[in-house]
């Protein structure tokens, strides 16, 4: 349940996740562009007073390894591991930046994001795209900053000039050769988990290094062979952090690297030295190098009986469960401590709270939209039965599909059943947990397949467009073209893909959801376009070809209605 951040949004890290061991992934790309993604550790004056805290391709970690560069993985262009409680006190702010290496400007950037993953779950995501920028050559994507507690801010501020200018802005100095600043990346320190060893970069002295290379063999490549490495084998250690979800199992160096899903000897994926669940309160264990190990200060206050090492339940001593005989078994502690953010129903549900905004249409989460009828004052037409909740005085009335709609209904057997919501109040709309996407039209037009419409402002004009072609069931395909000023909410089963219209853009007529009205639709029958037909298709479906000027798009869902 990642929280979506917009530019300027801020939140306490503790509100996002209880953990302090965070994975920060940045995905940024652009046609023909390469990016350097770096993390600046700044002091209270927002200066880079200690350039050991400038973590970039040549300096993949800070001295105490609280900030580590992990390289490209799991769909992220670059990723970092941030251990907040190990960051020294003089570092008050971590600024994540992306700079274009070479020619280019930020307006060419494709949609990207900065995300925070903790405890195996993505907890925050700040998405951006090139339209937010102009000629900048660098962008400050987001900050972690210390203001009583650590907080995250989605910055998204462009910056003219490249990495050097950014570095100067933070008060750093650019050396002629960046080599002296770079510790030998391969020289992994004894305490470092091999899985975090950075990929082998190119020559450190290269003045314009390529962006982070594709996963280098060391540490990031899958282990050869399908069998798990034997216990005690020093290498190769499979990098369990290749996945964005990062949880407990992480073998310390020298200990058997235990890939949890494999047929490993310890079913819990825990190295034998560690207590299976939770640390006993009195234990003064060294900080485990495991990435997902929750830091002790953030464990809830241990209630009596929690993880008592001296009174293990008999169950904990079963050797097949991964306990080494002689070790203190922790058993299954059942802590009853209060959860993060307090106890009680209201606190437990606070993450699902209604999001207040002053807008007419608000996406509450990816599957629920709220419309405030009081704003704008005009009625909303919604699919019948899509209301899940309303507050205020709202009237639901029947709305016929009209003459055009009856044509649709007659031809496809599926008339669009609408209701008109009028009055004052907020209506929450959802249907079958489909993903919802409000599209704001400002004079432009969009075609939506009739069954993908959830709701729209009555101020929009809509008409039915008929796409003829043999092979279409019913003789023709009907879509609704919306035009004017207002919002339409489109529903998709699953996360859709938005494709630009190119000379060869085809879509299944059953899976296409919407397209920009300026693109021309041609029905390509399977007889002629045999290559586009799915093998073994029954011949019922029909491919649509889209043609249009650049800038047009189509939306396709992973589901064939």
């Amino acid at each position, binding site marked *: *349940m990642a929280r979506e951040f917009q530019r300027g949004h801020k939140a306490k890290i503790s509100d996002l996740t*209880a953990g302090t061991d965070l994975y920060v992934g940045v995905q940024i790309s652009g046609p023909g562009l390469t990016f350097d993604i770096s993390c600046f550790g700044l002091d209270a004056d927002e200066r880079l007073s200690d350039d050991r805290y400038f973590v970039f391709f040549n300096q993949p970690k800070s001295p105490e390894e609280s900030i580590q560069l992990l390289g490209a993985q799991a769909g992220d262009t670059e990723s970092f591991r941030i251990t907040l409680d190990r960051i020294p006190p003089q570092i008050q702010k971590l600024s994540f930046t992306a700079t274009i290496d070479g020619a280019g400007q930020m307006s060419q950037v494709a949609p990207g994001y900065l995300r925070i993953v903790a*405890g*195996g*779950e993505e907890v925050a995501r700040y998405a951006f795209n090139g339209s937010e920028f102009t000629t900048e050559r660098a962008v400050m994507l987001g900050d972690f900053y210390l203001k009583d507690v650590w907080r995250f801010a989605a910055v998204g501020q462009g910056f003219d000039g490249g990495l050097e200018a950014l570095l100067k802005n933070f008060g750093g100095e650019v050396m002629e050769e960046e080599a002296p600043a770079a510790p030998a990346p391969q020289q992994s320190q004894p305490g470092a988990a091999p899985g975090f060893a950075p990929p082998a970069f190119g020559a450190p002295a290269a003045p314009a290094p390529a962006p982070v290379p594709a996963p280098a063999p060391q540490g990031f490549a*899958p282990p050869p062979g399908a069998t798990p490495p034997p216990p005690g084998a020093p290498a190769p250690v*499979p990098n*369990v952090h*290749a*996945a*964005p*979800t*990062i*949880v*407990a199992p992480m073998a310390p160096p020298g200990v058997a690297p235990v890939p*949890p*899903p*494999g047929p490993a000897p310890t079913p819990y*994926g825990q190295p034998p030295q560690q207590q299976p669940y*939770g640390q006993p309160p009195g234990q003064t264990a060294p900080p485990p190098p495991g990435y997902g*190990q*929750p830091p002790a200060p953030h*464990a*809830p206050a241990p209630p009596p009986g929690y993880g008592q090492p001296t009174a293990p*339940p008999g*169950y904990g001593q079963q050797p097949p469960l991964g306990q080494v005989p002689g070790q203190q078994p922790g058993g*299954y*502690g*059942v*802590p009853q401590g*209060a*959860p993060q953010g307090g*106890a*009680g129903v*209201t606190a*437990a*549900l*606070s993450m*699902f*709270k*209604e999001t207040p905004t002053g807008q007419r249409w608000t996406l*509450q*989460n*990816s*599957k*629920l939209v709220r419309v405030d009828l009081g704003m704008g004052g005009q009625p909303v037409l919604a699919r*019948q*039965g899509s209301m*899940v*909740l*309303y*507050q*205020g005085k709202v*009237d639901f009335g*029947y709305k016929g599909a009209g003459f055009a709609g009856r044509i649709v209904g007659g031809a496809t057997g599926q008339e669009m059943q609408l*209701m008109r919501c009028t009055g004052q109040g907020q209506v*929450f709309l*959802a249907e*079958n*947990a489909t993903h919802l996407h409000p599209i704001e039209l400002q004079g432009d037009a969009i075609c939506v397949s009739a069954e993908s419409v959830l709701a729209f402002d009555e101020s929009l004009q809509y008409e039915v467009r008929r796409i003829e072609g043999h092979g279409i069931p019913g003789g023709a395909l009907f879509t609704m073209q919306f035009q004017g000023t207002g919002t339409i909410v489109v529903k998709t089963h699953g996360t859709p893909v938005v494709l630009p219209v190119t000379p060869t853009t085809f879509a299944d007529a059953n899976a296409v959801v919407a397209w920009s009205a300026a693109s021309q639709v041609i029905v390509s029958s399977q007889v002629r376009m045999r290559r586009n037909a799915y093998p073994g298709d029954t011949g019922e479906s029909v491919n649509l070809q889209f043609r249009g000027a650049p800038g047009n798009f189509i939306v396709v869902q992973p589901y064939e209605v």
Partner: protein
Amino acid sequence: MYQPLAGYAPAPVTTRMENHGDHMLKVAMQSGQDLFARVGSMIAYEGFVQYEPNPPAVRQIARDWMTGEGAPLMKCTGDGLLYLADYGANVVVINLNGDGISVNATNLLAFDAHLTWGVERVKGLAKFAGQGLWNTKISGQGWVALTSRGKPIVVDCGGGEDETYVDPDALVAWSPNLKVKGKRSFKAQSLIGRGSGEAYQMAFSGQGIVVVQPSEDSTDRLRFRG
């Protein structure tokens, strides 16, 4: 080859009930702290956990709710880790801490056995759905897990005169101190097949919250499994 999967290993236990991802519940079981869970919701367990379908105490109450609604429960005892899920529904974990909550029977996944609970019929709704709406009221010091088709939303009723109207199919849970009544919003035209599709709602008023799921699919999947 394990790398993408390695991230899905369980995180260390920190509380009695936790989410593993959005759709799975992990319960740390200990002797003496029993758990009631929906029959058929167990997907995995580690350790010694025993399941007792329809324990006597429940059967007594179950007599009241054997009218077609209501969810059969099983009592889970033992030591270990228990994983529960309900066909991919989102799982919401609540530490009651003295509060109470009223849960739609099909949306209840598990709760601590020592909590005070009872099945009650929602007043004034019997004539609507045909079978009536049954819910389980739970209160005390302990943990409750609910399911929701899609990420739920929590709406504060505000406490004023304004009522909050909910589609009964989308309702998950509400604060027990809210006043509930039915509202039928049909007009004459609904009778001739021209309804708005929203024939009846439940109206809540008072101080408290209502939890609603973004789906009107209230099918009890666990119930219809063979």
